Structure formats: structure tokens, C-alpha cells
């Protein structure tokens, strides 16, 4: 008897709970499901659990230009869903100031919940405070957190949403804003590409012979850096890209690992981390052009020509070039790059296209709700 009453109560509460969510948000629930073929997440689910309301607030913030100086651009300006949250074709991106560009290619926002470091140089090691960089960087949104907060505080819909998400601690402040953005970004998981369905044996998905050949070649020639189901070892490597003549202040990871916040470019050139960048994930790589940390290569075929050992463009022999990109013969003579025939590159390219996740690119829950 007792139990029956409890179960009726429980069902009632569940119904009420569901109904409320449906009324407010057109019936969708954000469940973060960790793909079975993925590694352990780095996202702190205990500290900042991803809830439907938190995701929706984070999404509103992500698409809100009030995060920038003069309300010019939102995060989505350079992180466009249809291109796996990159800047549709731009090598570098203009921030809020006309004609002022950043120095790095906008990276995709996908599978952040599994990453140890963020940004090309790994300057952030926590997802929740990563947005401080784009919001405050003078070449990006050039805004202060306190200005953003005061803009949001004058908006009643934000007041309501913050208190729904964070309850008693629901003030509109930096930490809550960043936590909401983190919930949105943490929920953006791309794990339903053709490759995933093939490797998980779902929906009867099969690879064509050339895709199979490409996968096998990829595993031999690329996977020591673009490793595992995230297609990145998350290492910082010098890939022989060579200095960009127009970006003389670029030092890569050296600026992060230096203990001197005022270190000069000349000092950082002596660092073993000079011009090292994070190995990017190759998920949705077909859609995230242009490539490299400064977006200098537009076509994937050119990237493969760069990494092979006998067609131009060629690798630059920088001091800390990753040894996996150096072949040394018995006379000690070095050849830079990876041996790949033209046919092999075609097969690898066919495989890379199986990493495109159309469910992710078209998921309406991730789109601008406004």
C-alpha cells in the first residue's frame, strides 16, 4: 500500500516535471550521452552538470552579440554550426574592429568534453574559463566581462534563465555565464559520422573498398598524431609548417609554457615549444577548411601534399620538428614528411570524408534559437 502511494507520487512528479519542460522549450531534452567508442571525458560533470536549461542558456549566450564590444558579433560569427563551428572558409577572422584580424584559424567546437587543453597553443586547460579569451581579446570580441554582465543584467529573460539554471546561486555573474557557455559547448558531441556507424556496426553501414583502404593507410601513416576516436593525440607538435611571414609574433605553445609573461619573441624562439600547436581533431575535417593554425591551406589535397615527402609544399626543418615527420636513411640523410603515393592520398581523402557527421552539423538543438 505504502509503496503504491509512493509510486503514484513519483509518477505524478515525473509527469509534472516533463510537462513543465515541454511547455517552456518545445519538448526537447538535452541528454549528454557519452559515445561508447570515445575515451573518458575530461568535462567536470560533478562541478557543472549539463542540464537542458543550462544548455539552452549557454546556447542563447553563444548566439548573443552582447558578449562583444558594441554588440557587434556573437561567438557564432566565427563558430558556425554548418562548418563544425568553424569560420566557414576564413583563414583568419576579423573581430569587432573592422580590418583587425586575429592570428589563428577559428577551431571547431566539438567533443570539447573530451579535450585536455583548448586553443591552438593549449593556453586554457579548463573549458569553463576558455571563453575569457575570445571575449576579452582585443582582436576578437574586445569586451570586458563586467560590461557583458551589466548588459545581461538589464535583460529580464536572462534574469529568469540564470535563476532557473543555477537556483539560489543564480545571479548573473562571470562564473555562471561561463558555466552556462561550458554546458552548451560540452554538449556538442560529434560521434555519428559514417566512420562511427561503421566502427560501431550500426545501421548496417559499410565502407566502400577505397574507404577501407583509406582507413588502413590512415592508421599506418597519420594515426600516430591523429590518434584514437577523437582523431588527435592532444599533443603539441611542431609539424614543420614554417613561420608565417606576415605573422611575426606567432610563437605557438612557447608563449604558454614560458614562465615570463613579458617574454619577447626572440626569447620564445629559443623555447623547445616554439611553433608547436595542438594536433587538431580530424572529425568533420572536410567542413573545417581552411587548415593549419593560421588557415594557410584551403584544400585537403594540399594538406596531404604538404605532409607527403615528395610533392610541394614541403615541410620546414625547424629545430623541434616532430621526429615522426623525419625519415633518416643509413647515411644520416634526412627526408622530411611521410611517404605517400598519389593513389594512397586519394584513398586517405575518401576515408577522411567518412568523418563528416551530418547529424551533428544539422542538429537543430545546436542552432541559433533566436
Amino acid at each position, binding site marked *: 500500500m505504502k509503496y503504491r502511494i509512493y509510486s503514484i507520487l513519483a509518477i505524478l512528479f515525473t509527469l509534472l516535471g516533463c510537462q513543465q519542460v515541454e511547455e517552456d522549450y518545445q519538448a526537447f531534452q538535452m541528454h549528454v550521452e557519452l559515445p561508447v567508442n570515445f575515451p573518458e571525458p575530461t568535462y567536470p560533470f560533478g*562541478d557543472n552538470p549539463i542540464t537542458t536549461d543550462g544548455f539552452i542558456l549557454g546556447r542563447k549566450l553563444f548566439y548573443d552579440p552582447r558578449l562583444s564590444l558594441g554588440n557587434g558579433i556573437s561567438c557564432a560569427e566565427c563558430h558556425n554550426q554548418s562548418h563544425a563551428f568553424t569560420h566557414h572558409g576564413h583563414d583568419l577572422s576579423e573581430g569587432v574592429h573592422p580590418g583587425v584580424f586575429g592570428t589563428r584559424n577559428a577551431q571547431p567546437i566539438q567533443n570539447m568534453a573530451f579535450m585536455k587543453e583548448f586553443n591552438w597553443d593549449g593556453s*586554457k586547460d579548463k573549458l*569553463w574559463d576558455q571563453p575569457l579569451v575570445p*571575449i576579452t581579446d582585443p582582436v576578437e570580441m574586445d569586451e570586458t566581462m563586467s560590461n557583458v554582465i551589466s548588459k545581461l543584467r538589464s535583460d529580464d529573460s536572462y534574469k529568469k534563465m540564470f535563476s532557473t539554471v543555477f537556483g539560489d546561486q543564480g545571479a548573473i555573474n562571470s*562564473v555562471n555565464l561561463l558555466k552556462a557557455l561550458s554546458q552548451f559547448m560540452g554538449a556538442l558531441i560529434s560521434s555519428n559520422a559514417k566512420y562511427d556507424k561503421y566502427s560501431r556496426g550500426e545501421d548496417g553501414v559499410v565502407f566502400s573498398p577505397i574507404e577501407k583502404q583509406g582507413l588502413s593507410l590512415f592508421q599506418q601513416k597519420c594515426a600516430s598524431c591523429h590518434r584514437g576516436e577523437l582523431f588527435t593525440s592532444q599533443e603539441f607538435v611542431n609539424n614543420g609548417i614554417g613561420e608565417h611571414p606576415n605573422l611575426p609574433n606567432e610563437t605557438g605553445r612557447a608563449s*604558454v*609554457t614560458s614562465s615570463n609573461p*613579458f617574454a619577447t619573441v626572440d626569447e620564445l624562439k629559443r623555447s623547445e615549444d616554439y611553433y608547436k600547436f595542438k594536433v587538431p581533431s580530424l572529425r568533420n575535417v572536410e567542413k573545417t577548411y581552411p587548415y593549419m593554425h593560421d588557415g594557410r591551406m584551403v584544400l585537403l589535397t594540399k594538406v596531404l601534399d604538404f605532409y607527403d615527402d615528395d610533392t610541394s609544399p614541403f615541410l620546414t626543418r625547424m629545430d623541434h620538428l616532430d621526429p615522426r615527420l623525419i625519415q633518416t636513411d643509413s647515411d644520416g640523410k634526412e627526408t622530411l614528411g611521410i611517404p605517400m603515393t598519389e593513389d594512397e592520398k586519394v584513398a586517405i581523402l575518401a576515408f577522411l570524408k567518412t568523418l563528416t557527421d551530418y547529424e551533428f552539423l544539422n542538429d537543430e538543438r545546436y542552432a541559433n534559437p533566436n
Partner: protein
Amino acid sequence: MNFLKLYLVVVCTAALIISCSQNEISTKEGTQVSATLKFQHSLGLGDLLELTDTKSQKQSLTLDKFKYLISEVQFTTNDNENITLSNNDAAQLIDLDFADESNTVTVHLTDVPVGDYKSVSFGIGVSQEVANGSTEEQTKLMDLAEQDMQWAWNPNAYVFSKIEASNLNTESTVPTDLQVHIGNKGSFVGYRTVTMVFPETLSLDSKVSPSLHITVAIEKIFAPENPSKSVAFDAIGAHGGSSDVTSNFADNFASIFQVHHIHPTEQAIYLEDVAEGLNANEDSSSHTHSHE
């Protein structure tokens, strides 16, 4: 069943009455200040600072900026029990730009339990543990950091301290200014803990809000009591410098604080009666007095 209903009604009414009366009390008296920390600095902004450079020459500089974040405020009882205050209450940004005419910045601490205490400690900056820990516990710290104490591009996004001074030397065409900003950067750990032992027992109870006068000897950062840890002002910061020098700088920074004396019996004051925020320097309820 009736009995159960009656019981519920009684309990609910009682709860309502109790919660109402509690609210009344708290709005009437407010949040009691457990203790007031008065950081009196040896210099104010614009004051002259005589420092030694790497060539052992004396240089005159004027102090332009001096500010530091404090976190993890912890009181230790006479029985060696540690009471750590929440960073969301007790973390502060001490900034000479907001000091009063005696170069003093006043901090009001609340929620220290009644008891007898022998020392207080705090961190300068934000430890890696706190920065990597609970986000909710960083709510106030992040707000404080927005006052130009943020390295948005650094894993630990907090700047721990800043000191800047302009060199007055007119003989050199390129005199070296002082500019040191400390944080956890690369492999360098800039976080330090300061422990100040009280000259007498600090007794906290509901009737008093004792004030602690803390002297902050800024010049000791460069000329500490231990001469082997002296720091030439131009050996760090913009010119790189060895990590030993920067480490000495951070160590020295933690040694400039001392509790000079305590006013143990000052009448209780309430947070609501003193100006909100970190830069409150007026303190009408405490008496005025001179320092020897």
C-alpha cells in the same frame, strides 16, 4: 489520520513562525563583522621608492601601481584548529589606488566562529588547487579579477599581484621602469601563503568586531631581512630574469605583512553599516588613533 493532520498543521505553523522571526532578527541587526583587517602600506601611490638595480646602483622611482589578490583566508585557534573562510566571502583585491590618506585598505571579515585565535593566514593570488577546483567557489574571485587582475590567456587566469613604478633617472635616456606582474605562469608558481601570528590572543564574540592593524612594508619585497634574497628591481619582469629572482620576489612579497597591534574590544559593527565591497576605507564606528 486526524491526528496526523493536526500534527502537520502544528509543525507547519511552527516552522512558519520560527522562520519569520528569524528573518526579523537578521534584518534588524545584519551581518556581524567578525574582525576588520586594516592593511596599512608603507607607501602610497606617487610616493618615492629607492631601489637597487642589477649594477648595484640606487635608483629613484615613483610608485604607480600596487595591488594584490588575497584568497583562502584562514584563522587558527589557540587549540590549533584551522577555520577557512569561503573565498566567496573573504577573498579580496587590495589596491593602493583605493587606499585612504594613511595608505590603508580595510577589509571586513564575517562568519569567523566565536573563539580565541592566535594567527591568520591568507594566500597571495589563487592557488592552482582553487583555480582548478569548484567553479562556484570562484564566483567572487572572478569578479575581483575583472579589475585588471586577469590573464585571460593563461591556464590559471588570475594575476596575483602587480607592482609598477616609474624611474626618475634623467641621466639615462632609457631608464628602466619597474613592472612586475606575478601569477602561475608556465612552470613558475607565484602563489604564496602569508601567516601572521597575533601579538596577543584575538577573542571573537558577538559583542565585538576587533580590528587588526597590519603593516605592509613594500620596500621589503626588494630588500628583505635576509640579504641573500635581495632582488634588483630591473632583474625581473620585462627583462625576463632567472626564475630564482622571480621566486625570491614572490617569497619576499609574502614576508612584508605583519600584525602590528590589535584593538580587541571594538564594539560590534555590521556589514550593512559599512560601505559594501572591497574598497571600503571609511570606518565611522572605530575610533581614530595615531600610530607610533
